[in-house]
């Protein structure tokens, strides 16, 4: 596919997702980012999932996580760090 100057690729969108959610994009970047969301269902869906994850994570308190789930998650994070 031809690369259009000034248009963000999906890869660039993924890299900017957290900055977008945290309001750290410049006005020009923000406009480019949101324009991409108009036509790209994949990026729009990924952003929706990240928002949902953020909302769920804010509600979650450590003591609410069952011990076995916490151990599984910690093990997964340790393995992920080693990769």
């Amino acid at each position, binding site marked *: *596919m031809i690369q*259009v100057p000034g248009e963000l690729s999906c890869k660039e969108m993924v890299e900017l997702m957290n900055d977008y959610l945290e309001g750290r994009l410049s*006005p020009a970047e923000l*406009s*480019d980012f949101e324009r991409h*969301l*108009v*036509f790209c269902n994949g990026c729009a869906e990924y952003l929706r999932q990240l928002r949902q994850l953020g909302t769920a994570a804010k509600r979650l308190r450590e003591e609410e996580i069952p011990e076995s789930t916490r151990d599984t998650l910690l093990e997964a994070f340790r393995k992920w760090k080693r990769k």
Partner: protein
Amino acid sequence: MIAYKFLARGAVSPFSGEAWPPPSGATPGAWVAVSGPELWIHGCRPADLPYWVDVELWRVELSDPARPIRRAVQAERGRLLERIEAWGVASKRDFALECALRTARFAAEAFGQEGRESEARALSSCRTLDDLAAAAEAVGQEQLPARSRQLLGYCGDAVFWGRPSHAGCVSYIAAIAAADLRGDPAAVEDERAWQARWLCDRLGISPGA
């Protein structure tokens, strides 16, 4: 400045999820401002419309001075004036179809340039998404040059996203198909300009407004 703004159903911003205060009769909606440094209210000029399509289209007033940026204008405040009723289910569907058929014509042009006249005719004579799906499926993919294969793939994408009237996606596909056909990213601008003219014609918006 008078501008335009696409919103999600219920006059909701598609990005922030904030609802805009609607107008009441001839009285505009309340002014909306965004608090925070470097945060702005955005609107479209007629030429920007194809880049932002969504469920509802509104005529808006932006506070002066409104500043042009790439594909939009921004201001400190904005308010809804009236909904453009001509933009609805039918016009969104028709816009998506027109863009899908433009994609088919770009593919047909590539096939024609490669001497594949029957495929070119089949693609350029499509009038519906079903026609396009059938014509694209009938093309044998073996030994197709890369450009034709790519453009044929765009036809399939245009059908896929055209069926749910995802006009934002199909109009993008058509613009990229135009650029791939010419091998020139500048063709995106020309195709978007064509789309803006189509929208202005259909919606009764003056292109220079």
